[in-house]
């Protein structure tokens, strides 16, 4: 650091990309120790954090005379007392090649809810197994959730190799076990690394104690794994987030490019209206762009004046999402309160909010065995995962989650408590014609209510705003 040319350092730092990673493992797998080591060995830890750590380690540490790295990541007072991690914690570190965000989630209690929360944006997951026990129920569970979330890269880190004399046989056996487990899952890229988080073997540097292992050290791997192809650059989806009208001459549609690429001059269609126009300009604070790609946030202006509001979606005419009110999805229940089939939930999908009814719970999945349970009684409880079909009050514009995370994901919000009750990953359009659930729609017959025409516009504005919040009003003018 002494001879560091700071300008050069900053210029280099600016070019780094960002990798979000999830760590999965139980308390005993040494997960926090591994994270602590990544942070420590990549020089992220400042001296005073280390001082405090050494003090804390002596008081409540579980690592004997060694530094208890777990104390670094276990933040909240309550959990420091109990010695467990209770929620998702985010950690940051960087190397010469890349910046990292680690989502650290506990492996036991409420594991599904926490892991799903921590893993939704992850590019890569590190699954820890204990070399002494190999692939266990938890490994299966974590891997299933990783597959469900569509995380494309997994590192199976076989930890505590030091306790097994760095025996190649032990490692190979666990690799084989894991490959069998993978057959039922959809994880395209898996890398196996023998490590000792406690001693640092194969974490940052290759270890001399595993001469038989010819792969990269863990840090090397996560620094170099290419992730830029993981995004969807084919299907242009632009959920309109906010309409910008600073003056009469400018009407811009703010949004994030959810997927695909948009260029100036492209013909785009607005959903649900089906009206088309051409992209006139791609506006940002830093000037106009020729094209925009995910996850850029821009403002689009169009050649023609068409009525577009928040919750609408701009797409390319030759590559349309599914437009439907009947949807099938894998649903994860996140709420203490169990599913009530009579409840009309709010559904938030991209920037669109409407009402949703669960029609049927088709089957549940046992996360430990990945078995499907046909008997559901239409009940879902906290941490349960099920395939459901549901209908919504207004059409959604969606893709399968496996093709497009951005337009294949949604949350369900309890209309009474406002909690996020469930999160879902769309598998397709529901084929069943389920029209048993009727959405109560309020009708306002303005002429018969004796309301003057001069007020129509104001009323319409209020109704549009209500509709964006999921309450539909049928206006008769």
């Amino acid at each position, binding site marked *: 650091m002494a001879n560091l040319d700071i300008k050069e350092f900053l210029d280099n730092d*600016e070019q780094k990309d960002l990798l979000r990673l999830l760590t999965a493992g139980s308390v005993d797998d040494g997960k926090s120790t591994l994270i602590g080591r990544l942070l420590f060995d990549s020089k992220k830890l400042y001296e005073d954090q280390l001082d405090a750590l050494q003090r804390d380690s002596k008081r409540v540490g579980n690592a004997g005379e060694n530094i208890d790295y777990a104390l670094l990541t276990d933040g909240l007072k309550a959990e420091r007392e109990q010695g467990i991690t209770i929620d998702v914690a985010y950690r940051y570190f960087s190397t010469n090649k890349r910046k990292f965000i680690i989502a650290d989630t506990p492996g036991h209690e409420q594991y599904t809810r926490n892991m799903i929360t921590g893993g939704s944006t992850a590019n890569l997951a590190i699954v820890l197994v204990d070399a002494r026990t190999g692939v266990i129920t938890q490994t299966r569970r974590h891997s299933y959730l990783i597959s469900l979330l569509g995380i494309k890269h997994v590192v199976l880190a076989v930890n505590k190799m030091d306790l097994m004399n760095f025996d190649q046989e032990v490692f190979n056996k666990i690799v084989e076990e894991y490959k069998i487990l993978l057959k039922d899952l959809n994880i395209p890229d898996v890398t196996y690394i023998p490590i000792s988080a406690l001693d640092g073997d194969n974490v940052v540097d290759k270890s001399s104690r595993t001469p038989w292992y010819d792969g990269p050290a863990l840090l090397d791997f996560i620094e170099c794994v290419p992730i830029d192809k993981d995004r969807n650059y084919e299907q242009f989806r632009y959920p309109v987030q906010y309409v910008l009208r600073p003056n009469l001459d400018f009407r811009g549609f703010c949004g994030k490019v959810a997927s695909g690429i948009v260029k100036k001059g492209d013909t785009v269609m607005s959903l649900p209206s089906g009206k088309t126009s051409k992209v006139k300009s791609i506006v940002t604070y830093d000037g106009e762009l020729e094209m925009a790609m995910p996850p850029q946030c821009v403002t689009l202006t169009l050649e023609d004046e068409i009525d577009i509001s*928040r919750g609408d979606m701009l797409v390319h005419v030759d590559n349309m999402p599914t437009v439907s009110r009947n949807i099938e999805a894998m649903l994860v229940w996140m709420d203490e309160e169990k599913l009530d089939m009579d409840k009309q939930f709010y559904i938030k999908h*991209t920037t669109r909010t409407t009402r949703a009814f669960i029609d049927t719970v088709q089957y549940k999945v046992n996360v430990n065995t990945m078995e499907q349970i046909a008997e559901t009684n239409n009940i879902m409880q906290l941490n349960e995962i099920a395939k459901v079909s549901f209908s919504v009050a207004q059409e959604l514009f969606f893709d399968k989650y496996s093709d497009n995370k951005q337009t294949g994901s949604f949350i369900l919000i309890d209309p009474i408590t406002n909690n996020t009750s469930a999160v879902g990953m769309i598998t397709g359009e529901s084929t069943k014609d389920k029209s048993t659930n009727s959405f109560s729609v309020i009708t306002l017959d303005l002429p018969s209510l004796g309301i003057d025409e001069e007020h129509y516009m104001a009323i319409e504005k209020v109704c549009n705003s209500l509709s964006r919040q999921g309450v539909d009003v049928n206006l008769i003018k």
Partner: protein
Amino acid sequence: MIDVANNKTISPQRLSHLKELEAEAIHIIREVAAEFENPVMLYSIGKDSSVMVRLAEKAFAPGKVPFPLMHIDSKWKFNEMIEFRDNYAEKFGWNLIVEHNKEAFEAGVGPFTHGSKVHTDLMKTKALLAAMDKHRFDAAFGGARRDEEKSRAKERIFSFRDKFHQWDPKNQRPELWDIYNARVHKGESIRVFPISNWTELDVWQYIRLENIPIVPLYFAKERPVVEMDGNLIMVDDERMPKELRDQAKMRMVRFRTLGCYPLTGAIDSSANSIEEVVEEMMTITKSERTTRVIDFDQDGSMEQKKREGYF
């Protein structure tokens, strides 16, 4: 390089981490503007706030930002901060709201007389909560970062507060993808942290690249300072007790964070540019918040303050 399968004519650049963080923040800021009736952006005048404010300007360009900026004035901020705040708001056309705890101020509450705990509680936390209630804000942006402090590392980007403005760390709403649950009942609110995922270095890098103006106190200068309990406290006005002021010596110092002047320690430094500040940061052995007196009141003190409604 991205392999755009169906279109060989374009070869977009991969987004750098800062561009990705910028996009994440702009998306969050727009989401709040679209979903809440009455949001506000809390402005602490510090470097993180300055970045957040610029991101809001970016989110709505070429339009104006559709919510006001609010500063909770503890009445013990550095004078240079107040001057900077007023100039910035005027120059960039912000609607600036300034609120303070009038009662406590008139009763003479301050860190020298009442200690850091009482001062922070009355002049910062209470003042903020009263201002939130007075203006009926249903969402408030804050410039906190998760890498600053352990309890912040576990807080959601949309952080729900009950009608008493309290944070319940064990009962946070699940937050997935970039879909934020913005629904609240009357009286409840959401604190929103658009730069949650930025590190201290990211903030400096962004200030450098975007030429964002910041308070000059971040850069080294000869300043009158007094040593108090291991902290270098700058003499910013006459309210510092005379016996302390008399010990003041001129020293080349700067500040890593800004807050109430009696509670914010300076560090010896000659760093005069952003590059020098970053260089110092990379080689310095203390993390940012060690210069904040309030974090050391008690174990887990930030978590406690957050539960009570502090940012």
